[in-house]
């Protein structure tokens, strides 16, 4: 079984990680797995390969024969006999990137949503200060200098 060594600069939480070949100059870097006769854990496999210092540049392993799964490289142990032990754990987000993108989902926090009508208890509104402003209506029926201010009510006139 061949595994391919890749590297990525992305945050581990990125779903659609960008992967580069880990070989020098961007060349593909693969290795043949030597421990196929032993059991390999699908989620946390350990691959024994022939020693190659270029592997130390990689962050990920791609195993096409394990149903196209991507793995983080957690540790590389140097073994005797010119071998290396690649200790991995599955990168589920990268492995199922394509499938996940088309899945229906409900987001409850999102960078791209912006401020919405949903109250955000994490947002640090300033509780010490308030901003007070006034706005007068444009018109009023009242004045302090009325021209005809007196209303006189009298007995009905005999006109």
């Amino acid at each position, binding site marked *: 079984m061949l595994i391919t060594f890749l590297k990525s600069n992305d945050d581990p939480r990125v779903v659609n990680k960008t992967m580069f070949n880990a070989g020098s100059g961007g060349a593909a870097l693969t290795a043949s797995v030597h421990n196929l006769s032993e059991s390999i854990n699908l989620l946390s496999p350990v691959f024994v390969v022939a020693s190659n210092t270029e592997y130390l540049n990689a962050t990920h392993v791609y195993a096409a024969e394990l149903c196209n799964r991507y793995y983080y490289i957690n540790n590389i142990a140097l073994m005797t006999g010119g071998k290396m032990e690649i200790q991995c754990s599955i990168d589920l987000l990268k492995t199922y990137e394509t499938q996940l993108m088309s899945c*229906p989902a409900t987001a409850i926090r999102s960078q791209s949503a912006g401020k919405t009508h949903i109250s955000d208890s994490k947002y640090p509104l300033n509780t010490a200060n308030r901003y007070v402003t006034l706005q007068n209506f444009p018109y009023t029926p009242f004045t302090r200098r009325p021209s005809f201010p007196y209303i006189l009510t009298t007995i009905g006139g005999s006109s």
Partner: protein
Amino acid sequence: MAVNENIWGTPETWDNVLHENAKTSHQTMWQKVLTSVLPLNQLVDNSPCFVGALGNWYIANPICFDENEATFPLYDVPGNKHDWLVIYNSTRYWYGYDGSLSGYNTNTKWSTWQSPDMPDTSAEYFNRTLFNFKIKKVCLLPYVHCQADTGQTTEKHMYPLGEYIASHAEQYPYITGVCARFLYDSSDTDTPDWKDAAEHIDDQLSFSANYNFSEEFKNSGIFNTGFDSSYSVMIGATNKNYIYLMGFKGGVRKYISRNIMIIYCPVGLDPDPTHYVYNDDKDYVMYLRRWSDELKEEIYTQLAFSGFFFIGEGTNYSSIALNDQNMFLGTIESDNCTHGNYTRGEDNENSKQWQWEDTSDSEYDPDEPEPPFDPNAYDGSMGSGLLYSFSPPTDIYNISDDRFINLVSKLWDAMALVPAGDPLNDYVLDTFLTTNPIDSILSCKYFPVSIDLGGSSTTVKLGKYDTEIQARKLLLNMQNFDCGNILVFPTFGNGNTNWIDKLTTIILYLPFCGSVQLDPELYMNRYVNVEYAIDILTGNCSAYVSFTSDNGKRVITDIASGNCAIDMPITGIQHITLDSQLYNATEQIKAVKINNAISGLQQLGGLGAAIASGNPMYGASNAFGFLGSAYNAVHGEEVAEYNLQHTQLPIKMIGTTGATTGAMCELYPTIIFERPVLPDSKKFSEAAYASTVGYACCISSTVSAFKGYTEFANVEMNFEATAQEKAMLQGLLKQGVIIKPT
């Protein structure tokens, strides 16, 4: 959807594409029946219906008519479910009164379709409904009939709707008719090749009732081509390629000598006649509507009722895709009926029709009970006005400042007029109707108003005594005054309301009436209006606080009352009354009206503890939060400190407010906004917050629709992976992932 094969034949004989070989493939499917046998207003067979229409659609409810039906209801009751079907008609037939094949000028019975046993001579002609066709292979292309002005003889034009919008709306703004014709996709590839369905059948045109018909067809909601009297025309159904959307004027006139199939088409897109320009000539009546965005939306709505694809905009449609931005589609709702809603562009792919092979895939059952329909029009409004029949049996004068000073002195002059030798009391009584002349003045008030109270110029009369003091005698003792509008602008959302705006406290100060607190959820992004109604007799004033609803109606939400008149003491008794405020006190006790936000929160349940803990942000988030349990579960656990005291301004009015002191306070209605303050930009980066914490939301879409940091509540994972992997993925997505822009 089952089809009555006794009427329509077996599936092998049905058309699958609009009009393909239609002319030769079937016999005529209907014949004249006596209306006494078949009840009016009923379909013979609903089974060809692939969608019901629920609502105010003008092409619906196929029925047959009695020739003696001189008038017809203007439009159906909105809300009734309509089963409708497309009818293809190229008949050159008409039936005589007695059922024989006859020519012109015979009174025709309205006909319907009932059984397939047509006379042999009808073989080359047919009328049949269209059903079981590939709905993704046909679309409607709307046209407008238009002209430059309202003149009867003004040249008339007809353009596809998209072309009209793009190039002709300004030049020909008056619409006399709207129709739609069918196009069908003749391509076998994924790229459509839209052809005019008319190519397959005779060249007939249908057009608006506004064209120059003779008297009997004038103002008719149905129409005749006029080009050749052997042609028959339909509204609502396809006269080969047109469906008419916009008839004019109500009623169906008696139709003589033509054999037609009628789809009942109530008048117009808008039954409100004030929306039409009416050109009244003694021989010619025309209704026109001025082009507007509202009319365009009405056209879209009417087309959407059909459940068909239709080309709503754009000028290049020869190969327009069904998910093109200019392609619209009537939405079939969960009740399998259309309600006039539509989608466009890629949203069409989410429709029921998109999944159909042909219309037999429809789930619509015409025999199902009518879905419930909201009969309310929600077009009410609230208003205010004067009482015009209110006339007190006293005289009311409006006097200026300088003339009022002279008034009382005139009473002294009155005493000098007593004829020599006459008892004073008799004179006074006769002149003033009272032994004390001052009592002829019933009240005197000072109004600090700038309103012109109107009235007619005269002199003040006290009883029979003319003081010769110039004044204006008022007829109306009430006045109202519009103080204008203020927009409660959502300052934190770039013109759109968000949750921070809803934490704004809004106090509306009303001169003489106190203050009211306005609910930010109700008033945000709305215009607040204040109108004063002032009673000149008593000095009472009321301030009506209102806003404009979403459908343009006035909504009065608060009424605050007070007294703006200052009583001027005329006698000793009145002065005592003023001092003790026996009168004013009862009219002027005021309190701040607090919008009871607390009770609103408590109604949501379980929030008493949260409020008592002084953590009102929790309560606020629930009050404003348009909730899903997922949202609650996440946000309820982490609550920011927020002092409820800070949400209310300490404005109070204690005790009574006399009009005098009220006049010394602010005289303009004023809104006081108390808004939260955003975090200090030196300590808080909005961008960093967005990319590391994200903004609270509740948005449902696909994962790819989101960009950047995102926390998901639940993702539906319809792909192959182990159960453990899926569980781990859900956990990762809930904790938060980052989606890079592509």
